[in-house]
């Protein structure tokens, strides 16, 4: 009697536990799981991997889509036309990028590093989820100019994509959600955490004197808006750039409808800043010295200019030199040269993805 009861109790406990675990289990993507590695000392990522776990197949599909010109109306503008590996996934030497029918984009293409920690995208923060982000450039008439339905029809007709979607998501179904989730998987792998600065922080390297001095100046004069380890606090601020009369871009105000957000833009990360020139939301400043001179003297204090910039940021020529030395140490060549982010084999080569090659 006693033994039977104990066994019954044990069995019931196991059943209870199993049903509890079963309730907690979430659907996973099929395929070969890929672990997301958070660099030492960094916070947990913001992207929810529970609904879109990384797999080898999902990442490969996302990479292919990222380089495929057919995501654009005329086939000429893959994501990679404005986001190039050697420019840390920004657009090399372009203040504004080129899109469909010889049109300019209205903003400078940002670097795509460390998106897993971001909760809002675009210079104005208008996009609230990484999965929804690609739909903006894909459908913008001056960028990729494509209709989502037409684009999905192109992918469905392709000889390869149906099987790639099956490998990544379990069936041949191709829809907007799967396409954007695959792109997210690829984008999430773009982690930049191996610059000289990171090596110094890990005790594997040491700064040369100008970098060391620059780091001290940086912590004193720049880090309030560009804190480590992301070198941005992801906030929206007016840093004293006047309204461009042609672009008429009021930034964050377009999203919130609040006049106190006029001319505020997202504080960009400074990781790989040396290779992501030109700078600012419209690429109006060409080099790092132009940026420092903007904060030192040229910026204009207006009604919504950030409280930290009311007196600008006075910088001596010496300080500027040391700061630039430090900023260069944020360049992560293991990121810019990572073969995982390069054009995958089998995707038709695009002129636009070659270093220094001008569009058209």
């Amino acid at each position, binding site marked *: *009697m006693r033994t039977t*009861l104990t066994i*019954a*109790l044990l069995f*019931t*406990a196991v*059943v*209870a536990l199993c*049903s509890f675990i079963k*309730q907690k289990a979430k659907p996973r993507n099929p395929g070969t799981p890929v672990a997301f590695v958070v660099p030492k000392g960094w916070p947990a990522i913001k992207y929810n991997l529970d*609904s*879109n776990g990384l797999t080898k197949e999902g990442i490969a599909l996302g990479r292919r889509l990222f380089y495929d010109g057919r995501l654009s109306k005329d086939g000429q503008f893959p994501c990679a036309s404005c986001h190039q590996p050697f420019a840390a996934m920004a657009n090399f030497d372009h203040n504004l990028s080129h899109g469909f029918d010889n049109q300019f984009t209205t903003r400078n293409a940002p670097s795509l590093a460390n998106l897993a920690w971001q909760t809002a995208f*675009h210079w104005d923060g*208008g*996009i*609230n*989820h*990484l*999965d*929804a982000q690609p*739909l*903006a450039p*894909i*459908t*913008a008439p001056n960028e990729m100019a494509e*209709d*989502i*339905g037409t684009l*999905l029809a192109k992918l469905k007709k392709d000889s390869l994509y149906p099987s790639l979607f099956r490998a990544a998501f379990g069936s041949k179904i191709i*829809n*907007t*959600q799967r396409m*954007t*989730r695959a792109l997210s998987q690829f984008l999430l792998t773009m982690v930049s955490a191996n610059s000289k600065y990171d090596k110094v922080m890990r005790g594997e390297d040491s700064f040369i004197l100008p970098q060391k001095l620059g780091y001290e100046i940086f912590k004193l004069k720049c880090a309030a808006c560009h804190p480590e380890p992301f070198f941005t606090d992801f906030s929206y601020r007016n840093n004293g750039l006047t309204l461009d009369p042609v672009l008429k871009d009021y930034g964050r105000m*377009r*999203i919130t*409808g609040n006049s106190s957000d006029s001319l505020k833009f997202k504080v960009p990360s400074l990781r790989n800043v040396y290779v992501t020139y030109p700078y600012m939301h419209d690429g109006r400043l060409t080099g790092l010295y132009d940026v420092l001179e903007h904060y030192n003297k040229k910026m204009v204090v207006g009604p919504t200019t950030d409280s930290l910039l009311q007196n600008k940021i006075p910088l001596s020529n010496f300080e500027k030199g040391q700061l630039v030395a430090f900023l260069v140490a944020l360049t992560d060549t293991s990121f810019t040269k990572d073969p995982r982010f390069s054009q995958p084999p089998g995707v038709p080569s695009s002129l636009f993805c070659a270093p220094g090659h001008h569009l058209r």
Partner: protein
Amino acid sequence: MWGLKTKLMVLQALLLLALGSPAQKSKKESPILNNITISFENKVGGQLLDMDSVYQNAFGEAFTVTQFKYYISNISFNDAAGKEAKIPDTYFLINQQDSAGKSITISTPLSVITGINFLIGIDSIKNVSGVQTGVLDPLNGMFWTWSTGYIMAKLEAVSPVSKAPQSRVTYHIGGFTAPYNAVKKISLPLGSLLQLHPANISRISISADINKWFSGASDIRIADHNFCMNPGSLSNAIAANYAAMFSIQSISLSK
């Protein structure tokens, strides 16, 4: 003997714990479900909407509708006691140009209903959770790609008083966060008890009057406002107006 009694009680408790959720689940699934078809009849004033006809709003402004779409979601029914019973995962896109897209069939364990509630628009959770499928797929043209969020309702028309190119009227209404939240909860009492039965099909016909977009809480004259394409005070005002466009037209029960 006392120890055995305790053990039995523990066993009973654990059994309840183990089987509690599946038992509840099967209890929820086991009752007979009754089907209700809810159809939406789009109108202008008292007339059925016809895309070729010219109508007039309360200000005497003429217009011809070229597109009329809206989301109906989070449907619930009031039971005999007036208590709301939610129907999970209910998202529908009512599209004037899609003849199959104007009626919804849903199941409920309720046997008597006294009212219907729904959102015109999409709840905030679905607006912040990435890219969805089905009627919520962004390819349905009811999604802002530049400022993430669903277009809750869309009315496009042409009107001689519109100052926009081609005399167009474009009202894309959305926004899901304060202060620009266009999601409206609609509650429509049936006015009587509707007895449901598994052998019958119960039908609730709801009419939606486009003229309510222009007047009600605020006057929206086409001459003043020919477009609204982002969350904001105009979008709020139009949503507050159209929240009054629905009314129960008929209730029927057929074998």
